[in-house]
């Protein structure tokens, strides 16, 4: 077994200390070490966005970041999107608008959409499509996802 490194990071506002191998991606660390399986693997090449999390507020493909690079950074994952039992408006709107079918891409979309609304609270449809272009969905044709994000933004502001 290759040597493991101690990493101290913040995940969903909690300080986490973990051990991982340098070759493990942050995605693998979240899933295989912490069993936080809400973040999904779709491609491991940064092309599908299913593993999107926020690092210091910015959307990142966790498959293209090493676990050891998380040292000292602030991570947000799908597991921290709801406030306790209260859903984030994006989660609520995804449900109401049937913006998911199989749901595998949903955590990634929600995190990308959160990064968008944190930056641009009242986005246009073009803004939404641009900010979600790094997330592939094969089920919905995106229509209901875009509507859900726009509706969440409307009700937020």
């Amino acid at each position, binding site marked *: 077994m290759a040597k493991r490194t101690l990493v101290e990071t913040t995940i969903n506002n909690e300080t986490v200390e973990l051990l991982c191998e340098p070759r493990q991606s942050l995605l693998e660390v979240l899933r295989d070490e912490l069993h936080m399986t809400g973040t999904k693997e779709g491609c491991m090449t940064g092309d599908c966005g299913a593993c999107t999390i926020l690092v210091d507020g910015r959307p990142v493909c966790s498959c*293209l970041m090493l676990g050891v690079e998380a040292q000292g950074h602030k991570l947000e994952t799908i597991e921290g999107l709801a406030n306790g039992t209260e859903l984030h408006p994006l989660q609520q709107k995804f449900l109401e608008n049937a913006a998911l079918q199989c749901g595998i891409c949903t955590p990634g979309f929600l995190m990308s959409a959160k990064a968008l609304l944190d930056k641009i609270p009242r986005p246009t449809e073009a803004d939404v499509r641009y900010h979600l272009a790094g997330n592939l969905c094969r089920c919905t044709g995106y229509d209901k996802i875009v509507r859900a994000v726009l509706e969440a933004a409307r009700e937020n502001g």
Partner: protein
Amino acid sequence: MHAIQYEAPTSLEQALGILAKHGEKARPLCGGTDILIQLRAGTRQPDYVVDVKRIPALTGIKFDAKSGLRLGAAVSCIEIFEDQTMRRHYPGLVEAAHLIGSLQIQSRASVGGNLCNGSPAADTTPALIALGATARLAGPKGERQVKVEDFVLSPGRTVIQPGELLVELLIPVPARHAADAYLRFIPRNEMDIAVVGVGASITLDGDKCTAARIALGAVAPTPLYAAKASQALIGKKFDAAAIENAAKLAIEQASPIDDMRGTAEFRRHLVGVLTRRTLERAAERARRN
């Protein structure tokens, strides 16, 4: 992926020390958006990856109205996009940085990393060449500077020697009535690698072109400075005929290949189309400056 060691130096000296110690076995890690994929595919197999994102000398954007821009090699594409100075003075480079992959990729990827990866299809490299950018390298034997058009030697290979590190990119101040632009062609509207990319910077004096640099991506083993096409514009009236002539010369310089992203024939055609469009876009900006 094979087992690797990870180092995260916090100063240039420390980084150079680590790189010197491990030589060819080490490779800098910046955004990781290329190298992690290469590590998994086994196309690069360093034993040590040296994370350069914690080195202050590599992470700043410094603009001076006289000496120009010093762009840290590790500055992420999204930081470039959000920087007002960059947007004002180097819109072409900004648009190139903002075309790379998705926002998720842009949050990590850097212009320096894009250059060091050595891909002929790198989006920001033609934009840098168009701006006449120079790369500042530090290494065990001290510093040196290399013009960006001379930086990439072949696909995946650059002038960087073992132990060396790209510190920053030096970009001159744009002249009055000068501007740059970058356009690429991809089959989808997002996410793809450039089938062809064209960067251009143009300086206009009335309707006369006083300076021009055109650079091409994905049409040769390395990103190209299109010297003939650029020089043909200088000192001439900047009109449709001049643009057409530059496009023709750019096509002549391109030596593309057939691959899954496009045929050589298709790429040559696109060089003409994109050279025209990029020049027009740069000129439109230049007139406003």
